[in-house]
């Protein structure tokens, strides 16, 4: 630094080199970020543009898929995706809430908690195909439910639990400690403090997290191909016989979802209008997930406002 030139008021060669290096580095970093954003926009844009024609075609959205000829729709798949999502949330939400409360409120440290944390972390890192295969062993074959909505929902539950537990845990931990202290100092139990004070206060973050996780569940396919199956029997919404395979609400019928549909028609490759159908299905899937994202933020903010202001 203290070279001759700098003392003369000029800038040394070293400094010049360093400064140039710094500029180049910043340029490269900026280029990388731009490249990522371009890739993101390109992927989403490609999906939406190439599938837009089909995605806004009511016939495509409501009619049943075709296996060998063109013109099939995704009606049952669309219904199945939402039905599976709702069932999955119904099962996974109470379990995750309970587990998260145990980990944050009842036993923040100790051997039981360490084992549980390791188990949840393990579950979150397992490949979803492995979770699906386990679901096949237990629910499809073991319980004898076959390829069915209930098997799929339970497999998705295993996939979703680690995500939800983490979301709820973080939301509960973000509530100031003094809220819990206040409730305990009034002679309330930890359970009451959690259920009536902490959970309501954490609700904005919990709702946002749950809806975002719903997006992940909605697009999951690998855990479903061997649990909920790869076929979508035509649904008859007037049929309320819960044992009939065409009854939409029957949880023991096989149910292909949108994501599985994309995978299946592409790997079989026999539908003549394959490109159009898969692009349309992907566009519908993406639109739903984008909506989940927007909804998550709006809902979280709305609840936050109701809690604090008014």
């Amino acid at each position, binding site marked *: 630094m203290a070279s001759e030139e700098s003392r003369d008021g000029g800038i040394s060669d070293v400094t010049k080199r*360093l*400064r140039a290096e*710094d500029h180049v*580095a910043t340029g490269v*970093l*900026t280029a*990388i*970020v731009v490249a*990522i*954003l371009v890739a*993101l926009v390109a*992927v*989403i844009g*490609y*999906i939406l543009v*190439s599938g837009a024609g089909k995605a806004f075609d009511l016939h495509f959205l409501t009619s049943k898929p075709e296996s060998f000829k063109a013109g099939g729709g995704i009606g049952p798949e669309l219904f199945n995706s939402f039905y599976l999502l709702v069932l999955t949330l119904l099962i996974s939400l109470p379990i*995750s*809430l*309970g*587990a998260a409360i*145990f*980990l944050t*409120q*009842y036993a923040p440290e100790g051997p*039981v908690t360490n*084992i*549980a944390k390791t*188990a949840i972390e*393990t*579950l979150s*890192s397992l*490949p*979803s*195909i*492995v979770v699906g*295969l*386990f679901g*096949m*062993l237990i629910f499809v074959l073991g319980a004898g439910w076959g390829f069915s909505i209930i098997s799929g929902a339970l497999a998705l539950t295993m996939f979703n639990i680690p995500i939800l*537990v983490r979301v709820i845990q973080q939301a509960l931990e973000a509530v100031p400690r003094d809220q819990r202290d206040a409730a305990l100092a009034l002679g309330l*139990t930890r*359970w*009451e403090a*959690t*259920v009536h004070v902490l959970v309501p206060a954490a609700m904005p973050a919990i709702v946002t997290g749950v809806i*975002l996780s719903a997006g*992940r569940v*909605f*697009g999951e*396919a*690998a855990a479903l*191909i061997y649990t909920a199956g790869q076929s979508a029997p035509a649904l008859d919404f007037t049929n309320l016989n819960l044992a009939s395979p065409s009854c939409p609400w029957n949880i023991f019928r096989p149910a292909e979802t949108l994501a599985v549909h*994309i*995978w299946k028609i592409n*790997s079989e490759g026999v539908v003549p209008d394959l490109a159009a159908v*898969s*692009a349309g299905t*992907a566009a519908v899937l*993406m639109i739903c997930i984008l909506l989940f*994202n927007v909804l998550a933020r709006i809902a979280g903010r709305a609840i936050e406002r109701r809690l604090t202001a008014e």
Partner: protein
Amino acid sequence: MNKELDEREEVAQAASSAHGGGRQPRVRSKHSIERGGLVFTGVCVGLVVILVVMLIFMVCSRGIATFVHDGISLGAFLSGTTWNPHTNGPDGQPLMGALPMICGSFAVTLLSCVISLPFALGASIFVVEVQPTFGQKVFRPMVELLTGIPSVVYGLVGLSIVVKWTSGWAGGTGYGIFSGSIVLALMILPTVTSLATDAIAAVPDSYRDGSYGLGCTRWQTILHVVLPSAMPGIVTAVIMGMTRAFGEALAVQMVIGNAAKMPTGLFTPASTLTSVLTMGMGNEAMGTVFNDVLWSLAMVLLLMSLVFILIVHLIGRKGAAKNG
């Protein structure tokens, strides 16, 4: 837990004797509420733990059947280079070499990490060190969105863009390890980026101030001060990315070409553990030798995932020991 329950019994007696039962309202007593909460949440946690233990146990026990029940040697399974379970080899045993798939899985995993790491690292440096506001307001939500795109959609994009493009300049069908790695690189990019961003953001500002105070440029500071201290976190980010890449099934299966032979190049069809599982599991009846071997592949996949988790744990513990 037993001790706690005993305590609650005693509480019941103390409560009724202590301060005159007259004011005691007729509600569920506090200790029974507390016990109910503990039991409910404990059952939830127990359920999750039991499911995970069952998963590992059942997948492994089916995977081991190949070696115990069908008498196939572990060595032949792990080192055999021919996967053709319906044909018997010269030794009379079916040809169950899993090495092509194991190599394929590692090849796509490593290559996709190599491709995505510079992007992830560059982006996370940019959003922490260069443009933090942009990072929080624009980049992070975008990356979250990228995480939310389903893997089949990545597979579809790979099929309709990456495969065609690859075939255009590299010749051949375009299916292969290269296309698989590109798709996976895109998929793991958000995971690696957000974890690396957290790691870099966790470096205390005082480190940076020290470096700037000595007259270092931003780039020097990043290179010599920030990155070295964020290194454990960055390594963790990469391994989490590898975990995801190694376990991804459908997106890879759609673009890799599904030829179960030893990979000879990046641009010829190959297969991975997950792609063979995805394709094969539906075609074979339970209990056949072929089906058993598929479960052995699943077991290898499961054990590799556990190894990745273990590595992440060890890094975390080392970091904690260093800081604590």
